[in-house]
């Protein structure tokens, strides 16, 4: 029962995406191939709208996705993905600095 439900849910995923509208293009510059798994379950805003997180926080997030949510991330890839997420955010932050506003 559970397995068939899951299969059905996944089978309709493309319909879901098209009904929701355009997903943002995902600039995966410099991404390790293993990072593709991040956007299998959620669109890339979930990454780009986070506040500035430390490498340790990004690493904890990757591990949470792996252990709690079952993301198929190999142990050897955890650090690569976390490093990429942290460095990607630093680069994006520098580019966007002019448009930032604090309360």
């Amino acid at each position, binding site marked *: 029962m*559970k397995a068939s*439900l*899951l*299969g*059905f*849910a*996944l*089978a*309709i*995923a*493309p*319909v*879901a*995406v*098209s*009904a*929701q*509208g*355009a*997903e*943002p*293009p*995902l*600039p*995966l*510059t410099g991404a390790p191939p293993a990072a*593709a*798994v991040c*956007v*299998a*379950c*959620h*669109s890339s*805003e*979930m990454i780009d*709208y*986070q*506040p*500035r*997180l430390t490498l340790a*926080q990004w690493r904890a*997030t990757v591990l949470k996705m792996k252990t*709690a*949510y*079952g993301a198929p991330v190999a142990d050897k890839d955890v650090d690569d993905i976390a490093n990429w997420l942290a460095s990607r955010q630093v680069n994006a*932050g520098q580019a*966007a600095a002019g*448009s*930032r*506003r*604090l*309360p």
Partner: protein
Amino acid sequence: MDHFIPSRRHFMGLLGVTAAAAFAPLRATDLQLPFDNGKRRLVEGVEGKGQMILQRTRAPLLETPFEVYDQGLITPVDRFYVRWHTASAPRQIDTPAFRVHVHGHVERELSLTLADISSLPAREITAVSQCAGNSRGFSDPRVPGAQWGNGAMGNAVWRGVSLRQVLDRAGVKAGAVAIRFRGLDAMPPQFGKSLAVDVARNDDVLLATHMNGQPLPWVHGFPLRLVVPGWFATYWVKTLSDIEVLDTEDDNYWMAKAYRIPTTPDGSTTPGAPAGATTPISTMPPRSFVTNLHDGDRLRAHSTQVIRGIAFSGKGAIARVEWSADGHAWHRCQLDSEGGKYGFRRWHAQMPVGAAGQQRLLVRATDAGGNVQPPTAGWNPGGFMRNVVESLNLVVA
């Protein structure tokens, strides 16, 4: 080219699907939420919605633009915030085949059709649905998660049948501890939330089929969702299909690991402190907002300004709303007619405007249980349950 657009077919391939998806055009403009990295797109037409703040396309996270709360007591369905953990709930439901299973520590297992449920006496309750992480973007220090402004809340008229009627049909056995609710969003860890038996048996807990007179749209849990007035929306399980009476505490991920707050009286802890005891988040402490003025608005010197807004609490009806210019002297606001103890309560007041310069406006609510908004924000690692007194900085000229 600096960026490459990855093959969507590749990612869909991860999902076991190879068909390419079509992408509808969106009308979009930018908006800046008032915290670092708060730039978002305002979009129209996503998930059948009017203009919404796009927090995430998939699984959808859509925030209600704040001006909507000034436009009426009830939040329209097409402006109501949306929050899904995964994109795995089916969009098409075979309604004749749909069943809600009631099982576990019961006298009689039930398999109820929608017609079975609709045959029970229905009632309507106006209640606020608020995400546990509403306003998380204001957490200081910041924490990971959906970076909401204040728009992950809404007030709707929910129609449905009391869960209690269904529980009574099944016959909850002595020794039952909790009732667990699951929906059709099946990706692991499968979503499920539990209520203590006495909470679940409150007549106001509904199996809802309608929202503001319309059948629930998919994004709000068609064909059936749990409505737990006063409780954070994490308990309002969408596409509800499974009700399990437990004779032990629920140890599933969404109760045992996620949506937990420190056991301190206000659910707060000190940033960086060692993790202490936690408990599942439950009812909503009071909040209030000014809805007709915004930070940085200009007012005319030596005038009188009408201020108005909303207040709500999940711990008791709103008893009092007050405004202040300094956080010391508080002035009573007029409460508008009751919208039900679980709903938004609108309020208004006349605020004298002083000489040219800066003027602050703070607003705080107190509920019938004596719960009052705190003057400084609490903090917890999940970024949950923010309810600090809101303040605006106004410019007098």
